[in-house]
């Protein structure tokens, strides 16, 4: 179990109902973490449409997570 800070943007923030939360999880990668958060919040966007950043750096969905990591899920936005 590790504690991770999760941050949501755009439609994910709307669906999660918050912009940030701390979760204690067994998820080992951002991909597992997104699955978990999707089940919890009913996210509608597939992972393939998102990017993930860990500790302010874009990374792979399979990057190993460490305790106290800061994870951000980013959907593309298009408004102008």
């Amino acid at each position, binding site marked *: 179990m590790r504690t991770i800070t999760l941050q949501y943007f*755009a439609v994910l923030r709307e669906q999660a109902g918050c912009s940030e939360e701390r979760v204690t999880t067994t998820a080992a990668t951002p991909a597992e973490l997104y699955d978990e958060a999707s089940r919890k919040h009913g996210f509608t966007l597939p992972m393939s449409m998102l990017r993930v950043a860990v500790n302010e750096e*874009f990374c792979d969905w399979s990057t190993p997570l460490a305790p106290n990591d800061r994870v951000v899920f980013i959907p593309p936005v*298009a408004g102008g």
Partner: protein
Amino acid sequence: MRPFSFTSTPIDTAAGRESLADRACGGYATFEGWVRDHNEGRAVRRLEYEAYAALAEREGERIVAEAIARYGVQHAACSHRIGDLALGEMAVWVGVSSKHRSEAFAACRYIIDEIKSRVPIWKKEHYVDGDSGWVNCERCAQPGEHEHTRQQHAHDYSRQIALPEVGLAGQQRLRDGAVLVIGAGGLGVPVLQYLAAAGVGRIGIADGDIVEASNLHRQPLYGVGDIGTSKAVVAAARLRDLNPQGTVAVHAERATAANLGDWLARYDLIVDCSDNLATKFVVNDAAVSLGKPAVFASVYQYEGQLQVYLPREDWPCLRCLWPEAPRDGLVGNCAQAGVLGPVPATLGAMQAMQVLKILLGLPVEPAPALHVFDLLGMHWRSLKAARNPGCDHSPRDLQRPAVDAEAMELEFATLAAARASGLTLVDIREAWERASDDPAAQIEWHLPLSVFMQGTVALPRDGRYLVVCAHGVRSLALTEHLRSLGYPTVYSLTGGLAAF
């Protein structure tokens, strides 16, 4: 030659002229001040000039910079003698070169008048009768007597020239700059205004839309009287008024892969202020293939994203970040998202800042990043992005496979007509979008897009469907998506329920 200098030896006007020579200039105006043999009724034998050099040089350079900015001339310089001068010797020289003569004359006049009234130079007149006296040149000119024409009042860039990172050379770089702005909406308006105001020499505006009443709250360049008129045309007129020294080109159509390459070839860089992902990828591809910088921004409600592409081997492009160019309509919820004006205005102002830095040759950012702003929570995150080894930076087709949107959209005069068409209507709006007295309540199938996106819906493939949403953006996206999954007879209701 420095813009303003003192010399204790005779002024070399040939060198001065040489330093202002420029093939882009069609005119060169000079002024020479000579030592004359009388002043206020007294015969003068010789003159002595003294200056507080450190202060005087700074003020002199400021005046030359002001003249260049104020009159839009290409080059200007001034040289002033100090020490002893004999009758007939040249005491001061001003030279200006510019495209046309009128601003050369005006700038030349401005420089000499301002030098005489503002620069701390004193002259001691030695009279024929043996007497002498100090005369401060402040008496020589009345400030503010320059002609007050519109052209001359156009702009004064002194407050930005005063920045060490800008200066005269930087102002010249801005004047030589050419920037193409895609989209003249919430992001584009501040971008256009700040670039024109800063003195960017050539600006192109590409937008195929007309001004609508619902634009005004976040696009205050436009007024109620502009509703129904081309945004690009109205914006160009405003910019010409804002800064007549620059030129503004209008491309009153939507940027596409077919036209953008030709347009961008004539500019130094491109700013993406569009409101859809398809255009953003077209902009990215044009910038990458022509090797020009691009400054992207997007907003969603209270949030914004900002990314700069620089044509460098190690720099990520938009496709490095989003390898699967997402379809418009499948992300977010089209026209219902809502936005407050300062959100795109903030992001647009940041785009303008990045553009000015690029034109000035300043470092744009320490490392490539996607900057994500949340103006409701007041967070700003800079997420470091790297070149994606899987992205070859080459343009790719946006519409996979090339499908004809028109063949996927159907238009009906009324909902009843749509129902009578024999197609199964599928309302993909979310539950919260449907009012209880909604006329579309008669639609049999309600399958929110979010449910579709979870991939759990299995529609019979041989059915004939008409997908319906509020404005026809999401329904078209889903129709494309279903067609690509092998549903041959799925259609999207043109314009959505708002069309009825």
